[in-house]
């Protein structure tokens, strides 16, 4: 990275190119998680708050912010666990195995513990965050503290951790922390976007005459279906983003 750029950027150094490459990857991961493969509308995770907390825009936005925050923290902690303990070929089990005098050709695989550890870490960190915010940021706690306990059982958080885990299974392509965080933040922002839009639509929907059987969850799901169709329009956007980025960075 420290290499000077020669010839007015005509031939950027290899370090520079690598950094730009990483940046492009991060942007693509982010855009992918937020828009193209939106957590709610493409992967169907976080449906419960999406239907339950989307009656008013301000509460929906609060929920979205809380999710984005918790998802980032969970991704940070769980990436650390996955990297050092859970992934195939992780340092901790390898070290213990070597200390026990095991055969170096085989490995101890702790990936079976992933789910239990993820959910444990999510539940505990949500509780910690709740206590911390309540102590030091009482106004913040009053505005979004009520959502925190609901988030433990929000599948979007666990889903983000699982997606990150998926990218750490192959020892040749292990995601770094920056990639994990790009996915988590992107997913959280995508969730916020979807739930806020949904709340906006539902506020207007209150003034419409909806057939009685469809009132409530029925019409909300149909609206979600139409939103999902709209979000399908984002498929392929990453091609353009990629092209734009590579043109920009070249």
């Amino acid at each position: 990275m420290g290499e000077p750029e020669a010839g007015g950027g005509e031939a950027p150094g290899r370090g520079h190119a690598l950094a730009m490459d990483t940046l492009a990857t991060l942007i693509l991961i982010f855009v992918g998680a937020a828009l193209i493969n939106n957590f709610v509308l493409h992967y169907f995770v976080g449906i419960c708050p999406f239907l339950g907390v989307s009656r008013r825009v301000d509460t929906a936005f609060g929920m979205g912010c809380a999710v984005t925050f918790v998802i980032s923290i969970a991704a940070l902690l769980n990436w650390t666990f996955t990297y050092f303990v859970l992934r195939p070929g992780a340092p901790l089990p390898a070290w213990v195995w070597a200390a026990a005098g095991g055969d170096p050709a085989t490995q101890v695989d702790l990936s079976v513990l992933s789910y239990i550890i993820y959910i444990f870490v999510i539940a505990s960190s949500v509780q910690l965050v709740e206590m911390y915010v309540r102590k030091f940021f009482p106004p913040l706690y009053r505005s979004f503290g009520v959502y925190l306990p609901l988030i433990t059982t929000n599948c979007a958080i666990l889903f983000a951790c699982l997606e990150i885990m998926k990218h750490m299974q192959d020892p040749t392509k292990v995601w770094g922390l920056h990639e994990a965080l790009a996915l988590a933040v992107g997913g959280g922002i995508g969730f916020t976007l979807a739930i806020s839009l949904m709340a906006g639509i539902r506020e207007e929907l209150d003034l419409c005459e909806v057939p009685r059987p469809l009132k409530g969850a029925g019409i909300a799901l149909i609206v979600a279906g139409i939103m999902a169709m709209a979000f399908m329009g984002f498929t392929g956007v990453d091609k353009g983003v990629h092209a734009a980025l590579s043109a920009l960075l070249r």
Partner: protein
Amino acid sequence: MPSDQPTALERFINGILPENPIYRQLLGMCPVLAVTNGMKPAMTMAAATAFVLICANVMVSLIRGLLKPHLRILVFTLTIATFVTIADRLLAAYVYDMSKQLGPYVPLIIVNCIIISRCEICASKQGAGVAIADAFGMSLGFALALASIATVREILGSGTWLGLPVLPAGWPGWGIMVLPPGAFLTLGLLLGMAEWASQRRAAVKRQGGGTR
């Protein structure tokens, strides 16, 4: 055990229709939307959920005397996560295709509200026998709901049911039905139909009472 708790039979029957987890309680919507583009994944999902629900219910029911109120949810979560992992590994070992297709939705059973709410409502208060009956009823109700949605989506989307062709070969599969929007639309309309039926039944009952 307080005597006003429902019996095993009531628990079982309640789970299937009167308290159907999807249509009545609107719980566990993620898998309902995500894996119902075909009958096969839907049924695999229902089986995995049933396995976890039954095991977790029994386990929680057995240790219910030791639970501390404020740590109870944590214990439920740990138990559920363990059985989900076991289910996940069993799927990967014996039905690898399905395991690959279901992907992250198997581990997401952990945060399926159906299971934790059954642990909370039934298993932590009643004996193992009732807990098993309850788990079977709920699983059956869940499976029925998944099957109904998957049937609509697979037949309209691909013209097949459980992979067997049911519509003429010229059927132009409605691509939208197997895509995410189809899931939302199908569930929304089916919910509306269920609601309509129950409203009608209530109206008929009211009318019947009036004329008598």
